[in-house]
């Protein structure tokens, strides 16, 4: 029996991913799917370094590494011929990757806060600037999931957008008095929220926040009125892999209605397959597509170096 190597996030995510998608695939085809833990940037680096002889046959990447991978030409073109389920995927989850990758699921970024420590619950991004939150907010550090989204969201509150981020920088500079610290990951953020070091986590996905909520902590998670930012992970099949067919079979399997429902209901995420239906908690906690605010990553990525510099100096410095 053959097999191939892909990537996976850890913890409950991996558990649900295996249960909903990988195990059934392995059983069905009698193959082994090796999943590499680690970080997205490392997977991407590995893909780039080993472009000629890939170690990772299929990368599962989040924003923004997925877009970087596309720009670097890491993945091979995908098509409904080999992956029939792509036909059921909303085109925006395929087209934004230039058809060289396809989305698995989406999550929404919102605000998590302590109900006991916050007098006026935040409802919109703009509420983060409330002087009552002085020194009580944490924001993702640049490079951390949610940081780019934070910048774009901030820009939008002041009339800017992804190609005009100046207002975003200005807004975040003004947010500084409220920022206790820039967090370096969701655990870091949730830890601060749980211990009361901060009252508000400005930009986090729903999964970690609901972990606190479900364990009875006085925490709430809201999708801001002015629209949730979106997180998405996508499949990229390495260009020179010898296992391309198997990878594509796997993607097709992952995009199937059954897998999508099983997986998204478990992790509380939105399916990319339009036929899939959420139920239970997932139905309540995942915003509909029209509540999402997307933006053009392709415009942000070329600016990243400059953005980072500015962030370091103007916001974090």
């Amino acid at each position, binding site marked *: 029996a053959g097999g191939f190597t892909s990537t996976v996030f850890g913890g409950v995510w991996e558990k649900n991913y295996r249960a909903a998608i990988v195990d059934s695939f392995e059983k069905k085809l009698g193959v082994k799917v*090796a999943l590499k833990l680690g970080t997205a940037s490392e997977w991407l680096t*590995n893909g780039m370094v080993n472009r000629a002889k890939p170690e990772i046959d299929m990368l599962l990447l989040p924003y923004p590494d997925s877009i970087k991978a596309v720009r670097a030409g890491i993945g091979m073109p995908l098509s409904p011929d080999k992956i029939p389920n792509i036909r059921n995927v909303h085109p925006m989850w395929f087209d934004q990757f230039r058809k060289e990758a396809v989305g698995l699921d989406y999550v929404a970024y919102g605000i998590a806060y302590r109900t006991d420590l916050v007098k006026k619950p935040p409802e919109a991004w703009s509420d983060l600037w409330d002087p009552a939150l002085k020194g009580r907010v944490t924001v993702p550090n640049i490079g951390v999931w949610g940081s780019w989204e934070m910048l774009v969201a901030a820009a939008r509150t002041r009339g800017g957008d992804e190609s005009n981020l100046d207002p975003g920088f200005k807004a975040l500079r003004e947010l500084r008095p409220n920022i206790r610290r820039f967090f370096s*990951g969701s655990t870091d953020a949730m830890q601060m929220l749980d211990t009361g070091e901060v009252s508000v986590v400005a930009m986090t996905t729903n999964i970690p926040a609901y972990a606190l909520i479900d364990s009875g902590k006085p925490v709430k998670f809201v999708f801001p009125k002015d629209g949730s930012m979106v997180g998405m992970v996508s499949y990229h099949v390495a260009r020179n892999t010898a296992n391309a067919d198997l990878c594509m079979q796997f993607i097709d399997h992952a995009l199937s209605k059954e897998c999508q429902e099983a997986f998204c209901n478990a992790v509380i995420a939105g399916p990319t397959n339009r036929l899939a239906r959420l139920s239970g908690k997932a139905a309540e906690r995942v915003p509909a597509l029209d509540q999402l605010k997307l933006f053009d990553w392709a415009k942000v990525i070329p600016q990243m170096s400059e953005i980072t510099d500015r962030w370091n100096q103007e916001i974090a410095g």
Partner: protein
Amino acid sequence: MNRLLSLGMRVLTVLLYVFLLAPLAMVVVVSFNGGPVPSFPPTDLSLHWYGEALASDNFMGGLLTSLWLAAAATLVALPVGVAAAFAIARGRWPGRTLVESLFLSPLIVPGIVIGIAVLVAMAGLGIGNAPLRLLLGHALIVLPYTLRTVLAALTRMDPTLEEAGIVFGASRSQVLRHILLPQLRGAIAAGAILSFILSFDDVSVSLFLGSAQHTTLPIAIMSYMQYNFDPSIAAISAMLILATLAIALVVERVFGLKKILGS
């Protein structure tokens, strides 16, 4: 005055031990939480998260990988580092000071850069063997410790003992084996222990050098924490502390730790 000073010293010493151990004690306490998130003081006492940690393939596989990797890296770096320490302490060649400093560069270069550089270089050579890659990276980052600890001890070693060895017919390798190494035992053990622990603890270098089949425990932990915020990490840490304590106790009983870490 003198009495005050020595009382002050005693208090400071105790405070320092408290400082070293307090956060770890907290971790151990937190690990007994039954609930899904860590809280202090623990909500309901339970060994639940110990069970979870022990049942995880990632953690247990990572533990194995980390153990062999730390052992192998130490085994590679130890002789090499000890030999270099001898060359530097006992040789008379130009540029020793510079070379001695260069041996520290694995400490200075951030782990991510070491990881990436080794990854790129080995890919360039067409070597995709993750264990080999990990071993190289880890041997590099622990090399400075094996060198330094032995070098410091060698500086103050009485050379007449070596001379006595030679006089009584020991070859150079016998002097090494019977006289120098036993006396450097403490320093070598210290270097080995540091090496092992550091290799075991490394995240940055391993991140770029591992593979799906060869993931170290710290990487498994780090990945776990991307989505989870529960006391299983505390449980793992507590188990590591307890396991180490147990090993130390056994070693103490069987060999006497002071013999290994003593002069």
